């Protein structure tokens, strides 16, 4: 290597880096090299050979081996000689990779130009750190004067051109119109243009023809789908919990929120704010709460042996990582265990930021589509109207209700809560967490059948009855009180023993009462246990009937299921002399389904047990909220509270039976809705955040208050310590990295590499930006648009700027010389030519074949996938995958259900991330598995067959016309003569082969029942099969899945 370098004539370097064209800038060009390769041994912490290179004075002084930098004379400067490996002494940096040729050239040129080391960068690294360019708020850079003004359509071009001039490179000519439209369409909406789109664009000779296409595509609702997918990578979106069970979760409302946010061009600052703190905005809408799903896309571990707090912490770390990568563009997660090695993020800073997020519930809320929301509003309005009529008809209702209240207030006995502990062996692996109010919260693994044994000491001398309260908790599905996906639970059997030793006395119950006693009904399919027994839920008697096929159920139907419930079990014979005696209570919960590794549990979620000495104790029929209102000061009751009391009281008034029945009927129309994981703020005292030594949750140290790192912009004064404050801080104009990180990622998806290549890290270890001025200009332009009428932080504005630039419109064809000079196209002397992302590979195939369903949003879909993937031993547990057979089979890949542990193979093979962690930069591989997938995967084949049929049906009468038709559908352009003759020859050969075997032809052209349609007019099955071969070839072309 050394010899090789010595042999390189100086001219080689000079050609690549023309010294005359642009002087080297120390801060921009030299310091990053020194920082990366030299400061480790010659910096603040260590000065080997007494040499220090991070401060000007020391560096110019030199070290033990003499002068390091002789301004103007690289040949006498050991800095240059040692890194270039010239001379006898060991090459630097020692023990590390040698510098790249261009880096060495930069150092040489810098010294030869006089080693200009500006004052502002003269200090030592510790002070320098804070001056790292990306830690300064972006300033709008002056637009350089262009050497070719004609080429400059907007400032982007001026910046790019200036850099090209410096490198003595020239921009490429514009791409042809067809290529350009396909590129634009793939970039903006992720779908190829239809042949009609192309024809219209070609026919439009107006000077604004291109801009019109930009407008059309930015208005398309598919724009939101395309750009949502990028954000979903960063938001580590997936439709399952991860870890071994990897159960399905419903989070598609969040996915749709992201799509809609892009489509309505929700300003990026607002976009971030809602995801961090939508629930805390004044009068937060459902949408704004759904947005916090961003923070909930963390995985959930429900293995049997877990400590729920450990995995809550893992989720918190994951949130921090996602915020760091996707919003801040900083690797803050390094500081989880220790102070950041390279950036000035202290260990404590990490936990200050963490503290903002640490006071939340891991909630799961009921959510409704817009239609369902309208339906609900209608139901509630009608109920209010009926109640209004009732009140009008009986003007004395206020007095009557007050009399009822007076009597109802006094009818409850005293209940003494039991402090209970769960015997670990009996839990089936479920964790029972004491909540401090004598209640227990079930968390972690959810066995579908178990009988938990609860131990308590009685504080009462006499026990006549036991009460079981089922309590809501924000951490339960839909708020509980049960753990099923609907927040319901079922109590199979309730039992109690008194006394200790091997033979405690079993208690008998005379009767059971409950506030709800639903009619008997069979279990829903989600609780199917593969038995043939008739398993039912019904009134509370079922919990003491000794029959394990019956259980007390609490599901009162949509809209009224997720409320507290209670049951009281009255002893046949009171327990006397019970004080301090041991009570053992068994809650048998057997009404779940067969698979504990799926969402089939039917367990109680949060509950409390109490005892009483009162005679004739019964379950309180009043709903908990009404009981609470009654207990409060009546004088301070709000109208809404008064209405709530009325809504219950009216049900007890016999003369209103008809009205009550009408209202019941309305409730039955309440939509079931869906659920969405969200974050909601905890009530009461704030959870204390402590610094965790080495990031270990078992090693908490000092408490930490919410705050931000000192080197970034500071919090607004008097801001509360809420997530909303965090969001405001992050979207402040002075926030150095937020806008830059976003702009850079948008740039990355257009050009393949960001202006900062390390798009997840803008810190000091990041790669130097290729066009820092441009990045800053764009970041400022995003926040403070210069054009009139443009909303600040508008993503569409940014897109429009980029795609209308000449930089973007360049041809992507490349010469060997240009490729050698700039293999990664960082200087942008040509357009980007990139294989599209996995989802778009699929979307192009579906669109070209005409199969694509354009439907936007809604629940995930299940396109064909091999069954075995979802069964052991490939999958940990059996998973659901019900292959679609209607329109949903052909939806955009964005809607394909995503299991984290079993990624959809077609997408996985094309580098789609699986949501394990936030991903802001996908890899782009090119592998044989991709080839096998696009050649042989069933849906690719289905697309080939559909394209064949379409071609034969609609493509014209001659084979040449048909080929042209199919070719354009796939790659937009027309085939060349050579391509045409190649494909027609194939068609000819295949037509002959399939003509000879009708059976084979049918197998090729229509193996599935739904594909066996009548043949197109004048077509034979042999032709259709041959066209299937040709279509398959087209869909497998490199160009088909490439943005050119």
């Amino acid at each position, binding site marked *: 290597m050394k010899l090789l370098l010595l042999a390189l004539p100086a001219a080689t370097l000079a050609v690549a880096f023309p010294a005359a064209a642009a002087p080297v800038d120390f801060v921009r060009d030299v310091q990053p090299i020194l920082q990366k390769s030299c400061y480790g041994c010659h910096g603040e912490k260590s000065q080997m050979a007494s040499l220090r290179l991070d401060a000007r004075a020391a560096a110019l002084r030199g070290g033990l081996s003499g002068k390091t930098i002789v301004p103007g004379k690289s040949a006498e400067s050991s800095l240059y000689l040692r890194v270039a490996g010239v001379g006898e002494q060991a090459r630097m940096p020692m023990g590390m990779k040698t510098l790249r040729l261009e880096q060495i050239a930069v150092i040489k040129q810098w010294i030869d130009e006089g080693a200009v080391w500006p004052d502002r960068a003269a200090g030592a690294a510790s002070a320098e750190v804070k001056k790292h360019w990306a830690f300064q708020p972006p300033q709008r850079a002056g637009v350089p004067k262009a050497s070719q003004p004609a080429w400059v359509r907007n400032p982007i071009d001026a910046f790019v051109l200036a850099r090209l001039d410096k490198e003595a490179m020239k921009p490429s000519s514009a791409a042809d119109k067809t290529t350009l439209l396909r590129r634009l369409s793939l970039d903006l909406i992720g779908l190829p243009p239809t042949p009609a789109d192309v024809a219209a664009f070609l026919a439009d000779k107006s000077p604004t023809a291109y801009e019109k296409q930009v407008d059309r595509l930015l208005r398309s609702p598919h724009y939101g789908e395309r750009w949502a997918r990028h954000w979903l990578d960063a938001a580590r979106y997936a439709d399952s919990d*991860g870890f*071994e069970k*990897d159960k399905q979760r419903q989070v598609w409302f969040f996915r749709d929120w992201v799509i809609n946010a892009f489509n309505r061009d929700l300003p990026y600052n607002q976009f971030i704010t809602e995801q961090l703190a939508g629930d805390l905005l004044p009068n937060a809408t459902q949408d704004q709460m759904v947005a916090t799903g961003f923070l909930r896309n963390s995985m959930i*571990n429900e*293995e*049997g*042996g*877990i*400590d729920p707090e450990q995995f809550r912490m*893992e989720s918190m770390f*994951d949130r921090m990582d996602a915020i760091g990568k996707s919003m801040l563009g900083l690797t803050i997660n390094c500081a989880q265990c220790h102070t950041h090695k390279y950036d000035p993020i202290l260990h404590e800073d990490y936990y200050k930021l963490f503290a903002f997020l640490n006071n939340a519930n891991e909630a799961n809320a009921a959510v409704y589509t817009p239609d369902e929301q309208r339906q609900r509003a209608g139901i509630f309005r009608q109920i209010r109207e009926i109640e209004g009529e009732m009140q009008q008809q009986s003007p004395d209702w206020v007095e009557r209700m007050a009399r009822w209240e007076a009597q109802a207030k006094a009818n409850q006995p005293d209940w003494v809560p039991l402090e209970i502990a769960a015997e*670990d*062996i009996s839990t089936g*692996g479920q964790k029972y967490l004491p909540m401090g109010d004598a209640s227990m919260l079930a968390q972690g693994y959810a066995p579908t059948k178990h009988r938990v044994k609860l131990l308590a000491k009685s504080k009462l001398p006499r026990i006549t009855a036991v009460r079981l309260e089922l309590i809501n908790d924000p951490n339960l599905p839909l708020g509980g009180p049960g753990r099923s996906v609907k927040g319901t639970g079922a109590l199979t059997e309730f039992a109690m023993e008194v006394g200790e030793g091997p033979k405690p006395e079993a208690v008998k119950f005379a009767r059971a009462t409950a506030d709800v006693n639903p009619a008997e009904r069979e279990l829903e399919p989600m609780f199917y246990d593969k038995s043939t027994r008739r398993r039912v839920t019904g009134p509370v008697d079922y919990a003491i009937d000794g029959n394990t096929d019956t259980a007390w159920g609490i599901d009162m139907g949509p809209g009224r299921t997720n409320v507290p419930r209670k049951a009281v079990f009255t002893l046949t014979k009171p327990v006397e002399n019970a004080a301090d005696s041991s009570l053992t209570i068994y809650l048998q919960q057997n009404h779940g389904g067969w698979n504990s590794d799926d969402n089939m549990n039917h367990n109680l979620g949060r509950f409390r047990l109490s005892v009483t000495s009162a005679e004739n104790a019964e379950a309180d029929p009043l709903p908990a909220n009404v009981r609470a209102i009654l207990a409060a000061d009546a004088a301070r009751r709000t109208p809404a509270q008064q209405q709530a009391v009325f809504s219950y009281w009216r049900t007890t008034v016999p003369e209103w039976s008809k009205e009550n029945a009408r209202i019941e009927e309305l409730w039955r129309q309440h939509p079931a809705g869906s659920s969405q994981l969200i974050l909601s703020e905890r009530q009461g005292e704030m959870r204390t955040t402590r610094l965790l030594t080495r990031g270990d949750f078992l090693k908490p140290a000092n408490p930490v208050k919410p705050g931000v790192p000192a080197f970034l912009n500071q919090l607004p004064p008097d801001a509360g310590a809420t997530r909303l404050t965090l969001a405001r801080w992050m979207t402040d104009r002075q926030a150095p990295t937020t806008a830059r990180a976003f702009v850079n990622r948008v740039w990355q998806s257009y050009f393949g590499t960001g202006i900062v290549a390390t798009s*997840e890290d803008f810190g*000091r270890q990041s790669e130097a930006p290729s066009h820092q001025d441009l990045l800053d200009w764009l970041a400022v332009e995003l926040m403070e648009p210069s054009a009139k009428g443009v909303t600040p932080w508008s993503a569409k504005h940014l897109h429009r700027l980029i795609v209308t630039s000449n930089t973007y419109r360049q041809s992507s*064809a*490349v010469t*060997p010389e240009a*490729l*050698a000079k700039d293999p990664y196209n960082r200087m942008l002397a040509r357009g980007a*030519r990139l*294989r599209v992302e996995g989802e778009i590979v699929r979307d192009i195939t579906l669109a070209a074949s005409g199969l694509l369903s354009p439907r936007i949003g809604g629940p995930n879909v299940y396109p064909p996938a091999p069954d075995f993937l979802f069964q*052991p*031993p490939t*999958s*940990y547990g059996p998973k659901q995958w019900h292959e679609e057979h209607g329109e949903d089979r052909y939806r955009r890949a964005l809607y394909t259900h995503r299991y*984290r*542990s*079993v*990624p959809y*193979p077609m997408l996985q093979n094309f580098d789609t991330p*699986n949501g*394990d962690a936030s991903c802001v930069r996908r*890899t782009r591989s*090119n592998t*044989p*598995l*991709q*080839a*096998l*997938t696009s*050649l*042989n995967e069933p849906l690719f084949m289905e697309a080939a067959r559909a394209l064949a049929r379409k071609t034969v049906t609609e493509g014209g009468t001659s084979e040449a016309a048909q080929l042209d038709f199919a070719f354009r559908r796939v790659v937009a352009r027309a085939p060349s003569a*050579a391509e045409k003759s*190649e*494909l027609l020859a*194939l068609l000819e050969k295949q037509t002959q*082969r399939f003509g000879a075997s009708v059976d084979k032809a049918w*197998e*090729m*052209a229509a*193996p599935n029942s739904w594909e066996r349609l009548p043949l197109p007019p004048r077509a034979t099955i042999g032709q259709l099969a041959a066209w299937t*071969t040709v279509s*398959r*070839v087209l869909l*497998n072309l*490199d*160009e088909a899945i*490439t943005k050119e």
Partner: protein
Amino acid sequence: MMNPLHTSRRWFLEQCGVGLGAAALADLAGAAPAADPMAVKKGHFEGKAKSVIFLFMAGAPSHLEMWDYKPKLEKFSGTLPPPELLKGYRAAFINPNSRLLGPKFKFKQYGQSGAWASELVPHTSAIVDDLTIVKSCVTDAFNHAPGQLMMNTGAQIFGRPSFGAWVTYGLGSESRDLPAFVVFSSGKKGPSGGNSCWGSGFLPTLYQGVQFRGTGDPVLYLSNPPGVDNQTQRESLDAIQKLNTMRLNTVGDPEISTRISSFEMAFRMQSSVPELMDLSKEPQSVLDSYGAVPGKPSFANNCLLARRLVERGVRFVQLYHEAWDQHGNLVKDITANCKDTDQACAALVKDLKQRGLLDSTLVVWGGEFGRTPMVQGGDDGRDHHPNAFTMWMAGGGMKPGVVLGETDDLGFNVSKEKVHVHDLHATLLHALGFDHTKLTFRFQGRDFRLTDVHGNVVKQMLA
């Protein structure tokens, strides 16, 4: 760096000017573009091991029933463990203060090395002199998914590259028609860590493991779809390649030549993989030694397939057998598991040795953690235990006939020569020719490695 386009262009001009046959393309793939990320690379020094077969006993086998003989545990069976042992100890399911449970099987010493092994592993115990047994393994995790990730990626959290991905990244692929990193799964379930156990993390995705299967299509989408016979496949491929070549000549993007190679390798895989998977041509004596039955997927078949893969230059083979989580039914289930695996594990080592492949193939056996000396449930189960467990290695740079490390009298903690998962990784990488501190990948501004900032090479394990 050489310009990949020059290479591909020249190739096309010289080889493919007239007609684009399979033969020409096969040559082309042989001389892959200079930037081929799968090109064979050298480690930091000459490693003895060229390939790895990792027999991953997922679910975590009990060291106390198989390899770590504890007569004292037998003696104290039924009593509570000493309280000082449990200080700060977290158990997954049980109250740590549960009764001790003596070993359930009889142990004996075997071979020259005098290694102890139980009656559960009659075949493996017969080859202890070929093994490096480490009784002092420790890990940080005591739940399955984090534990399996720890063993596979050196971290309990998701998102890090797996051992196999690191090795493939570091050494490239010797095989031009098989993936470099192949994964099989047998047993009751899939591994708890899912795909991430063999994921590429932040390394380029092409280093991730490719799952093979014992039945049906061994690799997803390997077979021609309905209606497509080999001739149609070949004709289609020729057309694809020709059109791609035309495009390459027009736009000059070297990615196109990579895609052309990918399609050729895909085509070759369509014949090489079925040939590989076809065990019916193996001599009956070989099948019998493994207990393999062609056409009947099993761990034994997978072991034999692993050998065949290594013979064909595959870099890293990992066999998951998830069946070892004996919280209850310990005696019955572990007996069955050993019956399913012991013979094949031993046969694999012997077979490799006999073929002269053992020196260059590193065989690793073990799970994600150990089991508690304390009982779970009645008297027939053990909980998860990260403090001590046993693994064994054979071949590829390992010192045969060595038993390393000891645990205390109860098999609870390591008392001598502790080998943390990071140390194990460092040592295995060493056997493959890597300085584990230098096998790095830059991500998020930091050079990441399999061993993070930890790991010491355990010299006693090395030949």
